[in-house]
């Protein structure tokens, strides 16, 4: 029983979507898609509470037990409370006020901003952007250590990377004019070569990966709908 009911629910809700897609005239099911989608969104927002509870409880516990570094947990809890308070009360009436009244220049505006939008612009945005910008540095370090021409595969990898990089900068072509590539390839040059690499072998390989991914998706979907795969219960295959 424990497993049968959820399996039944999966089957029915999945089948409803499929029937709605293929047989749009079936009564009752018609339009079920939109309703289900709406329910799903609402349900997942409720589910978020599970995570938030987990986050708050584990941090509170660390603070209560004075575990090493508990002061950081206080910082986390404090910034959570502050943000949540301002962000949630800001737009109690859904229509009307704009959630973010940021009207002004790029990312550094003054004027009448709510505290919630100030947090968004001055804390959330720079942190999100900066953590992401770390990738730039890691790209350089990975380029240094991992692009060694050890075998044919590695040589292909690094040469196509270099060609595409040269091809995508505006003066890549003029920089290597002395190589006389124009004489060999006619009017063609690095940017041309880079486009060709991206359009032919890369596009082809990506397409193959996409096919495979789609097969995986289709079969996994069928297995889930028919109850063969039950990993979403946390039970693995059986």
């Amino acid at each position, binding site marked *: 029983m424990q497993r049968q009911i959820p399996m039944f629910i999966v089957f029915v809700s999945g089948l409803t979507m499929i029937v709605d897609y293929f047989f749009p005239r079936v009564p009752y099911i018609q339009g079920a*898609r*939109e309703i289900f989608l709406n329910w799903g969104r609402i349900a997942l927002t409720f589910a978020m509470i599970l995570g938030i509870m987990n986050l708050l409880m584990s941090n509170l516990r660390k603070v209560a037990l004075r575990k090493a570094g508990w002061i950081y947990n206080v910082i986390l809890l404090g910034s959570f409370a502050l943000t949540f308070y301002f962000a949630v009360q800001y737009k109690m009436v*859904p229509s009307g006020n704009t959630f973010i009244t940021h009207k002004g220049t*790029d990312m550094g505006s003054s004027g009448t901003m709510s505290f919630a939008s100030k947090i968004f612009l001055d804390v959330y945005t720079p942190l999100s*952007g900066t*953590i992401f910008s770390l990738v730039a540095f890691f790209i350089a370090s990975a380029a*240094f250590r991992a692009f060694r021409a050890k075998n044919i595969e590695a040589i292909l990898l690094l040469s196509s990377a270099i060609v595409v990089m040269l091809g995508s900068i*505006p003066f890549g072509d003029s920089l290597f004019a002395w190589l006389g590539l124009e004489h060999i390839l006619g009017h063609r040059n690095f940017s041309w070569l880079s486009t060709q690499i991206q359009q032919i072998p890369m596009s082809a390989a*990506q397409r193959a990966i996409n096919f495979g991914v789609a097969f995986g998706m289709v079969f996994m979907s069928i297995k889930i709908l028919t109850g063969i795969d039950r990993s979403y219960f946390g039970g693995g295959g059986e």
Partner: protein
Amino acid sequence: MIERLQTLDRRWIFLILFLAVAGSLLFPHTLHVAVEPYVQKAYDTLDLLKPGDKVLMAFDYGPSVAPEIHPAALAMLRHSFERGAKVVMYTLWNEGLPFLDASIQHVAVPMGKRENIDYVNLGFKWGGLQGSSVIEGMGSNLKAVFPVTHEGVPYDQVPILQGVKGYRDFKVLIAVSAGSPGVDEYVRYANARYSIPIVAAVTRVSAPKEFPYVNGKQIYGLCSGLVGSAEYEELIHHPGLGIAGLFALSVANLVVIAFIVFGNLIYFWGRKSKKG
């Protein structure tokens, strides 16, 4: 010596890159760009718009990738307005709202476009769930997904939305998209089912994934990354942030290439000295 170089502390690499990028921002040069065919295709598609045509525009990106594709969003919005099109804007990313707002402030307002008549801001709807729910839902019933505009005007009272039911009422969907939910979902659900033409602006990194879609005519034009943005700015003769960042970008690229070459020199040198 060789061993030390082979196990070079990566912090030196970080420092060199930092100095190169900061330096090129402090001492900039203006570069001219040649337009890629995919960007040209995007331009040509939007250029076919006629006055009064309706365009759907999604701002599905956040601050982290904004330097790359926000300029393209501005340029495409400007282009659509120049063609006299009416634009319905929204975002499926909660971080996208400030950029949607900024685009209105930077493009629509200076061009004298009127809210709810020439454009409307439908605001944010959580895409979640890979966006498929919202993207699917918008196809047949836009009103159900966005019952009120961002400013709180009920859907039925907005002039631009009169008679608009779903994707089929729009000439084109401009998807400025940095991930999921984004252009992939639009291809899979909006284009596959409602055959709405898509013009996309994406980050350079996700561009290759879209190439098959462009070749397969599921996407009608693609503007990728800061370079794509700069090219689009060049096409509409309105230079902006895209063209401004190009020089630093080129220098950074050269630095990375230099590191690959340097890494290999050390590798071969090390192998040689081991053999010898």
